[in-house]
């Protein structure tokens, strides 16, 4: 059983017009339940597009996307996933608590159940004192933690993240990575994570999926064998650097091929 199963999915934008873009071509991927998978690649490789196919915010031109053993559209209607973006995207007119409750309101939960769950999530991301603050009173990192709390509020089995730490500084980023792993271990959530950063992908994931642009496709999948337990020392271990090298080579190999062919349609 897969949490996410993608079979030969393709996505073409502006089909037939002069500005047609082959965002994805024949992408296949299986994500096991509880697994942490990163999508990495240069700009335009289609990783965000692929994420949105899983989220059913876009429909594939060809192929199938199955989430939680259902068609992606059904999974979205059933709210089987939570999503986090680069901009925390909290509603500035709602308190932190009410922001977390948003997906629960839309699912029709009653007031008490919502309040209970919101408190639970605030505890999970270790920001219990900030429930009644407003988002603009929080730092960028804190806002992202609330965004993650919101994404997990309904306890979905799947978490989709589109470069959520991209706007944060390096120290906060490393801290957030640790927090994310802790939270996912506690909840057993499957995660598909889009990123630009090689160390981030390696630190967080069980597998790193390397993608290449135009047309977007998967060129390499790197198994990261760092073992289950990851902490601050993990970033110093040899296995960490080896995995980074493997990913970098995957990216570079495709980059070299790109340059070698003299493609200037970047």
């Amino acid at each position, binding site marked *: 059983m897969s949490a996410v199963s993608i079979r030969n999915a393709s996505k073409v934008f502006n089909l037939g017009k002069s500005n047609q873009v082959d965002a994805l071509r024949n992408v296949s991927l299986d994500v096991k339940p509880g697994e942490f998978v990163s999508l990495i690649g240069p700009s335009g490789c289609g990783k965000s597009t692929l994420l949105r196919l899983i989220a059913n*915010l876009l429909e594939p031109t060809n192929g199938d996307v199955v989430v939680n053993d259902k068609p992606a559209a059904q999974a979205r209607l059933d709210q089987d996933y939570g*999503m986090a973006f680069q901009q925390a*995207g909290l509603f500035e007119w*709602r308190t932190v608590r009410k922001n977390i409750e948003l997906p629960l309101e839309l699912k029709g939960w009653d007031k008490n159940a919502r309040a209970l769950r919101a408190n639970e999530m605030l505890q999970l991301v270790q920001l219990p004192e900030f429930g009644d603050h407003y988002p*603009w009173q929080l730092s960028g990192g804190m806002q992202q933690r609330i965004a993650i709390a919101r994404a997990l509020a309904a306890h979905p089995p799947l978490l989709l993240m589109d470069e959520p730490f991209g706007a944060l500084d390096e120290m906060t980023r490393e801290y957030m990575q640790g927090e994310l792993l802790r939270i996912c271990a506690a909840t057993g959530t499957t995660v598909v994570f889009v990123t630009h950063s090689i160390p981030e992908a390696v630190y967080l994931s069980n597998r790193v999926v390397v993608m290449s642009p135009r047309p977007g496709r998967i060129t390499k999948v790197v198994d990261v064998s760092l073992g289950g337990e990851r902490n601050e020392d993990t970033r110093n271990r040899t296995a960490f650097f080896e995995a980074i090298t493997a990913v970098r080579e995957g990216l570079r190999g495709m980059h070299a091929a790109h340059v070698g062919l003299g493609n200037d349609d970047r």
Partner: protein
Amino acid sequence: MFVAALALVVVIWETYKALGPADGGTLLGVRILPRTSEYAMPHVWDMFSRFNRPEVRGSDRSVFDAVLAGAWYSFRLSAAGFVMGGVVGVGLAVLMARFKLVQRGVLPYLVVSQTVPLIALAPLVVSWGGKLEVGPFVWPRWLSASVLGAFLAFFPIAVGTLRGLAAASAASVELMQSYAASWTKTLFKLRFPTAVPYMVPAFRLGASASVIGVVVAEISTGLRGGIGRLIIEYAREATGDPAKVYTAIFGAAALGLTMAGVVIAVDVFVMRNRPKESVS
């Protein structure tokens, strides 16, 4: 600061009165300088003292009471017009946000209408008073003034609200889509709250527009009871009683400021929890 500004205006007024020619004068050959005689330009303190004295020789009512009553009457008409215009304006904005076709068809006219003197319609609308009948309902004359106010208020409110409704970030809209939220749910949970900072200046414009509409309607037809008519009446009596018309003008100013004050108070309340940034 504001008080200082008013003081400056008073100083300029009195200075000119002291220095200027009593019968008006010419500047570069054009008869442009106003007269400074008592009847044309009363002293500022005369204007204020006029408030206390009786409205008409021998009457019990002081000018202050008369002006207050007139201003209050016009205020109620403006408020009614503002509410009507607001409801229609917001409703139309929602319709335009929902149906792109309606937006493309109607919005250009809304935008252009703000550059056109729609108050030209004032005499027409007011003339419906007393003549128009729908079943047992006879159109009262005061309703014309409110309708005109509503008509003028509705344009900026509709345009501003639409802008606000369209201002939700793409990421937020995607978020709501990921929740499989319906258009209506998205409207109430995302678009309206996002629109509030845009609706605030639009409603302020609408408030002053409804005041203008009501006052113009009153003036163009001498609607009884309102401040507009008082201004016209007092202006006619200016030969014998020059300071009186100014009292009515102060009344009109107070009307406008009160209306604006109410809207601003609501604004502040509605935006109380928002970060302090402005939307232009």
